[in-house]
């Protein structure tokens, strides 16, 4: 009886046309996801024998290998000498491309940010190793969550579909909520995790509602289809209502993630309560991914609506720039102070997004590269000064640091000066390009606001520097002995080296960034395994098979080895 039902159902008699998968393009993702899973497996089998150094080593290697697998992708996108590629380059022509049915895009933008995320994971793992060694935590979950969370970030930077973007965001965020709440010894850590979770879920829901409305307005969640639809159809009046509302809700959701004023209220409390090594990760990688998502959705997907979303971003940018810098002035807790300063940094990056131009996107990239190492380095210092138990974060703990540990204080000074935007550091160029982008986009007043807020923020960083180096003569020396864990030391050296290198010779970075514009590309023609049932199908079903506007099925691209099992013998 069931056989006769099968015979009546045409779908079961032919093979499913699976989308073309370019495995090399997914390799960084696969390396990360597999690295996290294998790490968990090893730890559960041999955890007692191998210990924390192995976890750290593994995490750093995973990050570096993922970085290494992204390099050939860069060569492919740039159309360099094809001999660097180990796969058959004939399949995918040079230039940006998308894979897995157009869900995941490989362009200069995504490859560059994938590399940045991979490096950030490696450096964050070193910082985390330093604190866990000091505090006697021997758990594998921290490194594993770093890796898996970064997988979500990598998905986000390459997402060509709003649903994929959302899922990447959730992978990233859920892992970070746990990282924030992970220090089970301090109840503040769980409070921070809960607060981050509740407001994060709240903002995710807004983002998702925005996607739903955009879906109603354009008929698809794929950025390829959305840009195509918007290029063909001029949405005016009541037909643009859904798209406009959707954009507004998506901006609100992403603004929560980057902690732009007025969506910032979670960030000082969460930065304060969460373990410092987790904060280094959430301040760097989460912002990279959220800004990448913002650029991809707004600048690439909805550039036709730029006139509508630019004012929103301008308001967010001004509030973040001024609000972050001003509120940071009155903070007495260094972690909260850095939280507000990172809000101010977010304002600068928003300038680049707001510009809605290539110059703006370049500014975003330069700022993200510089900021990532600055913020990881700064929180690495904070994690050392926090001492065992991760609790000493008041400004008083930094008084006279220059005498206790000149190396640490010197490092922190360089990083703080770079955050202030002093020349010969990466921060200077980052701020410079952001301001240029604003001027370029006819919003010079924003540039003026940005520079004023930079001046305010400079006072704030200098105050911290002064606190470290200049001590009143009668002041008692603070508790002596501040050992720098070797791994954290390595991380600090890397961060300072990158900061100074970019600051002294910005040429390499800017030339790389110039080659990294974000684009959306249609997926390659789908591979259709032989489909004998196609002729007898109703026309609607053919649409269902063809999928997202992929330009029809070429019968010549039959791949005998394609996926899908031959379902013969049903009748």
């Amino acid at each position: 009886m069931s056989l006769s039902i099968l015979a009546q159902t045409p779908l079961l008699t032919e093979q499913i046309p699976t989308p073309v998968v370019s495995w090399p393009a997914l390799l960084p993702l696969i390396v990360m996801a597999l690295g996290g899973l294998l790490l968990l497996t090893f730890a559960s089998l041999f955890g007692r024998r191998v210990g924390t150094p192995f976890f750290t080593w593994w995490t750093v290697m995973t990050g570096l290998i993922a970085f290494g697998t992204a390099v050939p992708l860069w060569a492919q996108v740039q159309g360099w000498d094809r001999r660097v590629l180990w796969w058959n380059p004939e399949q995918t022509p040079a230039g940006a491309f998308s894979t897995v049915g157009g869900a995941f895009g490989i362009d200069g933008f995504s490859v560059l940010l994938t590399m940045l995320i991979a490096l950030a994971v490696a450096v964050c793992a070193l910082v985390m190793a330093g604190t866990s060694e000091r505090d006697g935590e021997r758990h594998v979950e921290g490194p594993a969550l770093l890796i898996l969370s970064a997988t979500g970030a990598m998905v986000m930077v390459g997402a060509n579909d709003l649903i994929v973007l959302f899922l990447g965001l959730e992978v990233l965020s859920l892992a970070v909520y746990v990282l924030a709440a992970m220090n089970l010894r301090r109840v503040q850590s769980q409070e921070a995790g809960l607060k981050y979770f509740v407001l994060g879920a709240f903002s995710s829901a807004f983002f998702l509602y925005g996607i739903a409305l955009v879906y109603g307005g354009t008929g698809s969640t794929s950025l390829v289809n959305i840009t195509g639809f918007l290029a063909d159809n001029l949405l005016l009046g009541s037909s643009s209502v859904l798209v406009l509302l959707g954009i507004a809700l998506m901006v609100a959701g992403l603004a929560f993630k980057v902690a732009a004023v007025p969506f910032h209220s979670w960030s000082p409390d969460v930065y304060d309560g969460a373990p410092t090594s987790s904060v280094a990760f959430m301040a760097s990688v989460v912002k990279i991914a959220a800004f990448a998502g913002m650029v991809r959705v707004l600048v690439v997907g909805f550039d036709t609506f730029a006139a509508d979303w630019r004012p929103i971003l301008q308001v967010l940018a001004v509030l973040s720039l001024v609000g972050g810098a001003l509120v940071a002035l009155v903070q007495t807790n260094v972690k909260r102070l850095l939280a507000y300063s990172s809000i101010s940094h977010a304002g600068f990056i928003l300038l680049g997004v707001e510009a809605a131009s290539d110059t703006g996107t370049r500014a975003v990239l330069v700022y993200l590269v510089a900021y990532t190492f600055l913020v990881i380095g700064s929180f690495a210092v904070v994690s050392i000064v926090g001492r065992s138990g991760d609790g000493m974060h008041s400004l008083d703990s930094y008084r006279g640091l220059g005498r206790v540990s000149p190396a640490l204080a010197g490092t922190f000074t360089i990083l703080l000066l770079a955050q202030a935007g002093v020349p010969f550091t990466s921060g200077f160029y980052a701020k410079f390009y952001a301001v240029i982008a604003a001027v370029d986009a006819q919003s010079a007043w924003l540039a003026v606001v940005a520079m004023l807020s930079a001046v305010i923020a400079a006072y704030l960083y200098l105050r911290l520097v002064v606190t470290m180096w200049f001590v009143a003569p009668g002041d008692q020396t603070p508790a002596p002995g501040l050992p720098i864990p070797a791994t954290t030391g390595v991380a600090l050296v890397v961060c300072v080296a990158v900061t100074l290198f970019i600051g002294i010779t910005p040429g390499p970075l800017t030339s790389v960034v110039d080659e990294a514009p974000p684009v959306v590309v249609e997926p390659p023609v789908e591979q259709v395994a032989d489909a004998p049932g196609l002729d007898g199908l109703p026309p609607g079903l053919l649409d269902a098979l063809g999928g997202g506007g992929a330009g029809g099925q070429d019968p010549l691209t039959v791949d005998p080895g394609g996926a899908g099992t031959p379902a013969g013998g049903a009748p």
Partner: protein
Amino acid sequence: MRSIDAGYLVLAAILFSIGAFGLLVRRNPLVMLMCVELMLNAVNLTFVAFGMMLGDLAGQVTVLFVLVVAAAEVVVGLGIVVAMARRRPGATADDIRVLRG
């Protein structure tokens, strides 16, 4: 667009804002979690309604992913709540103070 279609969208919008309101004013973390579920359900309703109006299956498939996300979110949220309640048994009140700068 049929009038019942507009009904679905309006119902979803009201449901979403009830969830958002509840999340901001309630202080019990478990009730906040339920409010998140309300918001996600409103989004699901919107997706299916648009899918029906557009004659497109993508709306339904998307809801499936949202379901997975909702389940994962609940696991993480409950985990944090349990860990916190173990340290601080009366953890329903002001431990998380939303909307404070």
